[in-house]
């Protein structure tokens, strides 16, 4: 089948979908060009890289318009044709990919424009833009990949560019540590991902998405007893990139990177790659569940169900932690974790309905409003001279009206107030949960209450009340390059949910299951009133709770009211400390053993042993060489006699 596709593409010559190559390569060209030719020129670097990404955006838009809900295959080229494994580099465009292309290039363009203001005083300004372009290239590769191996390659490239960007201020130890932590944590997930790919390859004999999907559609039991393991291992990749429990620890630390990076990578796109990948390989999760012998007690429990549980747990955990954080970026980071948890939960639950478009829908809306929130936070941080503690802000509403209003819209969208986009996408998830798993629906509503609570707390403390520090006193509105991207982002935050994205996306999955969607204003209330009212009620309840506690508050009342619980929440449930104790001490133990092995067994016994043996026997044999011809004769004679004696027998 894939050969047929290749053949077809070769015959028909260049096609309009080959523009996708240009979308993919433009940011790479700019990144390389900037690094090689204009590593000092700030203006040119900015123009090139922003231009490259905007070009990608325009081309994505063209493809989006041309193909609409359809799908297309770009002319691929052979890369690794080995018997039994045919890996080619090819691009695949379907509604899922074309939507994601728009999100990635759109948010990236705005973030880059914003960065011209935010990073204005930075020495390594061109390097920043080149790294961002490299990231966009990698991310687009994930979006467009049409097989597992190519996806994995770009997956790792995203990891690298994330490492470069988190550690952008590498002279700061915290940033350097955070980048290492992010990279290593991701490596754990990627290892599982790779094993998963190997299992899928060995079971299905192909790494091509379309072929694998067709094979599984023909025979859903093809994966046999490895279905569950393969699903979970592939999910491990998503667990790393999308920071799901227990690999969630790197994301809050990644906030050490510059704020535009947090907005683009650690809120809107890279962390969404995990969700996107799960949607891309969704056909694995709708296959018949199966477990190998030792895990057979899991029975009919599918990998998807476990995934939804992990997602729900992450969502709840992160939301609880966010309630007691004081750093504006950390609150947003945990909120991102929590929303990603909801999306993962939706993917898991979607397996029953054979449609994960609720997760993708939330991914799209979340990408826009969370990017906006992060950029807003960046604007606040910029204005307050890099003060990030919300208790040292206050009263910023009057000083920064643009930032305030856009931040408020973002908060409303995140909290899930109608008519903002977050309401509709969350409602999709809640409706799905209500139909498939009422307990997870309850968790979702609880998360929603907490989300509204901590976001209202953030807004009430940072923007209202009186200024509580000198740096907040001198705050003033950010420059235009930072202001206008925020304003532009309000449009999708408001409206993206009004587009019929659900039916559009379901083309990618199963057209037989149409999705009900808030494509009109009150759609959710008609479609599943219980979910909609609960979602709306949760937002209102969370807000009123926050209002009663934080309106004109000068310090956080919760630590005294909750006592120990608040402390635990503030310390992120001690996950970092637990990991440090367990893994660091285990790691130290292993390194000591390895050191001992190296020092005494490898170096001592083997290396020094062999050389010592040779040396000693050499010294011993040297004594035989007397130089006296008569002793030689004697030995020679004895030797001959021995030979004769032995030969006789």
């Amino acid at each position, binding site marked *: 089948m894939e050969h047929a596709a290749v053949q077809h593409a070769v015959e028909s010559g260049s096609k309009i979908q080959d523009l996708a190559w240009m979308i993919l390569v433009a940011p790479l060209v700019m990144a390389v060009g900037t690094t090689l030719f204009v590593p000092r020129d700030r203006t040119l670097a900015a123009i090139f890289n922003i231009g490259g990404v905007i070009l990608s955006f325009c081309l994505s838009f063209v493809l989006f318009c041309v193909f609409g809900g359809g799908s297309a295959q770009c002319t691929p080229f052979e890369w690794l044709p080995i018997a039994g494994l045919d890996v080619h580099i090819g691009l695949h465009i379907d509604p899922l990919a074309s939507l994601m292309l728009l999100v990635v290039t759109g948010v990236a363009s705005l973030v880059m424009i914003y960065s011209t203001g935010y990073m204005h005083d930075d020495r390594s300004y061109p390097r920043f833009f080149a790294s961002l372009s490299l990231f966009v290239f990698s991310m687009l590769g994930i979006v467009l990949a049409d097989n597992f191996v190519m996806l994995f390659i770009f997956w790792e490239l995203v990891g690298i560019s994330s490492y470069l960007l988190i550690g952008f201020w590498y002279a700061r130890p915290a940033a350097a540590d955070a980048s290492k932590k992010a990279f290593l944590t991701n490596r754990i997930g990627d290892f599982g991902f790779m094993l998963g790919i190997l299992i899928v390859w060995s079971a299905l004999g192909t790494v091509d998405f379309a072929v694998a999907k067709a094979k599984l559609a023909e025979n859903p039991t093809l994966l046999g007893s490895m279905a569950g393991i393969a699903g979970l291992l592939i999910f491990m990749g998503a667990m790393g990139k999308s920071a799901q429990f227990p690999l969630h620890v790197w994301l809050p630390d990644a906030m050490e990177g510059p704020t535009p990076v947090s907005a683009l990578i650690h809120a809107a796109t890279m962390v969404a790659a995990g969700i996107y990948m799960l949607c891309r390989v969704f056909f694995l999760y709708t296959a018949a569940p199966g477990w190998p012998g030792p895990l057979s007690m899991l029975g009919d429990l599918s990998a998807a169900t476990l995934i939804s549980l992990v997602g729900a747990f992450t969502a709840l955990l992160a939301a609880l932690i966010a309630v007691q954080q004081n750093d504006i970026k950390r609150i947003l980071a945990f909120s991102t974790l929590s929303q990603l948890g909801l999306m993962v939960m939706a993917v898991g639950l979607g397996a029953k309905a054979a449609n994960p478009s609720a997760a993708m829908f939330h991914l799209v809306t979340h990408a826009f409003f969370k990017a906006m929130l992060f950029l807003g936070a960046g604007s606040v941080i910029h204005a307050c001279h890099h003060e990030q503690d919300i208790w040292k802000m206050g009263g910023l509403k009057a000083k920064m009206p643009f930032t305030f209003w856009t931040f408020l819209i973002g908060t409303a969208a995140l909290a899930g107030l109608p008519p903002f986009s977050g309401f509709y996408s969350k409602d999709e998830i809640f409706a799905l949960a209500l139909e498939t798993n009422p307990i997870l629906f309850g968790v979702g509503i609880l998360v929603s209450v907490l989300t509204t609570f901590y976001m209202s707390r953030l807004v009430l403390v940072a923007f209202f009340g009186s200024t509580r520090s000198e740096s907040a006193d001198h705050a003033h509105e950010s420059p235009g390059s930072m202001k206008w991207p925020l304003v532009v982002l309000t449009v999708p935050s408001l409206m993206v949910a009004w587009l019929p994205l659900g039916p559009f996306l379901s083309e990618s999955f199963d057209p037989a299951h149409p999705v009900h969607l808030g494509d009109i204003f009150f759609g959710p209330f008609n479609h599943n009133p219980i979910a909609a009212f609960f979602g709306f009620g949760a937002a209102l309840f969370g807000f009123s709770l926050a209002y009663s506690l934080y309106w004109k508050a000068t310090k956080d009342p919760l630590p005294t009211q909750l006592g120990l619980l608040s402390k635990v929440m503030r310390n992120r449930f001690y996950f970092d400390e637990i990991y440090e104790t367990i893994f660091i001490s285990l790691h130290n133990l292993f390194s000591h053993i390895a050191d001992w092995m190296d020092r005494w067994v490898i170096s001592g016994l083997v290396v020094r042993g062999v050389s010592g043996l040779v040396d000693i026997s050499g010294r011993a044999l*040297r004594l035989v*060489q*007397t*130089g*006296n*011809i*008569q002793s030689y*004769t*004697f030995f020679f*004679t004895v030797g001959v006699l021995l030979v004769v004696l032995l030969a006789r027998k």
Partner: protein
Amino acid sequence: MNVGLQHYLIVSGLLFSIGLLGVVIRRNLIVIFMGLELMLNAANLSLVAFSRYNSNLDGQVMVFFTITVAAAEVAVGLALIVALYRKRQTAHVEDLITLKF
């Protein structure tokens, strides 16, 4: 008493052992050289004895060659010993141990 092959071989073996003993324990190069000649002739003796025993002249032909070559070898060997003596003022083997390590 009937002299057979055995007797020749015993004499040959004794001659060879005496020659070898001379080579191994004597110090003077000339005497060692004489020991060597003795061993050579012990071999010649057994060759002739075998030749006779097998009624085959090949062994005797071989001995002729050996004697010829040995004559040349003695000339070369003695010349070497004389040259060595002139150079080192000694013909004792324990003084000639520079070929070690």
